[in-house]
């Protein structure tokens, strides 16, 4: 009886994983298909990968994605780290509600974040563009009109990345002995020197994990990018979505496989780092 039970549960587990990963596996397999079909196997080939790198639209969207992810990660990491330190030095009565506010964007549905950011940008730009028109008509002064594009995409990515950085840096600040800052100042540091020489090395693991997670979030984001990038700018995820609307080309399989591999690699790095840190912490105790 017991043995049957175990077999049953293993079978169930197997089915769950099959349903979860079979589509991705299929996608990866057919990205190496020599033929045009996504259903019939015609032999192994790197053909679609080769074509991928010839495709200007895809390559330019890869470039956009990498650039926006990198810039958003750097800016969000700096801003998030300082924000975490700001929260940390705050009075508890003020910090608690602010931390809750910080958590909301992470739990909020992407579509809501995307639409609201889009509406915000459109409203703000409508106001600005109206002001520019009025200036031109009344004073013959001109200024650039603003539209959705790379800039708004970058702002959107920065804003949804900051909470993840704060979330990763805050526990490191809490673990830090507060006297360390006093000690550094006591030994001749200004507050800024103490920050760079003592606080940053102490919270560095948190900053790096925060940056890695932010980068991962940026790379694989579709919904928020879709609403904030405008018509001229396209990230990789948006390009793939656009391609599926016309004809499902096996190129999609290839580029999706690469995206999957990149995100998987990043997640592995984050997890290995976390496991190592926990080990080090356990050793200390």
């Amino acid at each position, binding site marked *: 009886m017991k043995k049957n039970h175990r077999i049953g549960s293993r079978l169930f587990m197997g089915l769950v994983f099959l349903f979860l990963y079979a589509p991705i596996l299929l996608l990866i397999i057919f990205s190496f298909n020599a033929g045009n079909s996504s259903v019939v196997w015609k032999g192994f080939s790197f053909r679609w990968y080769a074509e991928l790198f010839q495709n200007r639209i895809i390559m330019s969207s890869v470039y956009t994605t990498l650039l926006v992810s990198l810039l958003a990660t750097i800016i969000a990491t700096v801003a998030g780290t300082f924000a975490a330190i700001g929260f940390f030095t705050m009075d508890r009565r003020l910090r608690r509600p602010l931390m809750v506010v910080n958590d909301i964007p992470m739990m909020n549905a992407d579509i809501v974040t995307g639409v609201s950011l889009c509406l915000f940008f459109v409203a703000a730009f409508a106001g600005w563009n109206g002001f520019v028109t009025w200036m031109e008509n009344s004073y013959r002064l001109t200024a650039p009109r603003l539209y959705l594009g790379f800039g708004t995409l970058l702002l959107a990515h920065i804003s949804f990345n900051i909470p993840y950085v704060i979330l990763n840096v805050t526990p490191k600040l809490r673990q830090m002995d507060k006297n360390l800052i006093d000690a550094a100042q*006591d030994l001749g540091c200004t507050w800024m020197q103490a920050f760079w020489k003592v606080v940053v090395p102490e919270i560095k693991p948190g900053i790096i994990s925060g940056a890695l997670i932010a980068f991962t979030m940026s790379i694989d984001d579709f919904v928020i990018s879709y609403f904030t990038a405008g018509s001229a700018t396209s990230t990789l995820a948006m390009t793939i979505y656009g391609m599926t609307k016309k004809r499902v080309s096996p190129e999609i399989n290839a580029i999706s496989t690469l995206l999957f591999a990149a995100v998987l690699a990043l997640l592995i790095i984050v997890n290995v780092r976390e496991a190592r840190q926990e080990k080090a912490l356990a050793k200390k105790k």
Partner: protein
Amino acid sequence: MSKELIRLANCTMAFDDEVVLDNINLYINDKEFLTLLGPSGCGKTTTLRIIGGFQTPTSGDIFFDGVRINAVPPHKRAINTVFQKYALFPHLNVYENIAFGLRIPKTDEKGKKVKLPEEEIHQRVMEMLEVVNLKGFDKRHITQLSGGQQQRVAIARALVNKPKVLLLDEPLGALDLKLRKDMQNELKRIQKAMEITFIYVTHDQEEALAMSDTVVVMDAGKIQQIGTPEDIYNEPKNAFVADFIGESNIIDGIMRADGVVEIFNRRFRCLDGGFEKDEPVDVVIRPEDVDIVPEDQGQLKGTVTNVTFKGMQYDIIVDFYGFKWLIQTTDLSPVGSRIGIKIDPDGIHVMKKSHYSGMFGDYSSYSEEYEEISDASFDPDEDQEGGDEE
């Protein structure tokens, strides 16, 4: 020896509405070993933080070498600190921890940033490692050190900057008893050898008496008494000091004349004077100053209610007319026996009444009080007066 180095003038510190320091006046001499002693929450750590520059008094002034330094930040004061729990930098090894202060560029008279040459840093760090008996530990990681070794690194890290004053905030609180005794001697030796002023914060009265030139007893944000360890022990100013420093029986008395005090309706000769006739007073009698005699020869007669063997002596609790005394004696008097006692005039110390009168010095609840005194697992965190919430 007796040149004044630091002066606190009318210093008051308040967090929100809570007054942590109440009008402190204190001067500290050059090369002095001064201890701020008191229970947790008495304001001793706040006083130290004001001297270190980590807190600015709400009102009052602090002078260093005659110059007002209220607004001088910590990094510009010729003062270094050994922190509670050491606050060593975990990402640096022993050598780099000690070298930390030396590596910060200093501004010279012409306003130019000057970096110490590497050879000088190396030489001074190595010297310091020798002073604190940590030769050969320079490459060790902080987490690989025992509590006592971390303590020594913290002292070396502060002293290598050649400060005029070293502040020590309960530096031995986290060490076990044996190590604590060793480090007391060690600190005293280092202070003598380096010829600098030590300002030491502790709640441990034994530590304070053993190490200090001057003891400042504090309670409730006020200085209760300043004096040499002998003064503080032999001539406590009020019932709080008498109770906090060592063991004391504190009894209500009436001063009948200079040199005559009345306790339990019996007159005793004493050495104190200058009180008004028939003034109510607190009388301190130390447990070791009482001689046990046969009942019929005693000035006071009582019943033994408790005996504890303490190695060197017996601590016995004796009931005199309902008031319980602690007496230390080398002769065993069993529980229930009737004894008499004699007290020499120099064993009686008379104090003016204060708001502490009646709060201390009765050994009716002996066992609990004893545990409280010998509580080694005292948590120094409780002493983070005000300010910090976590």
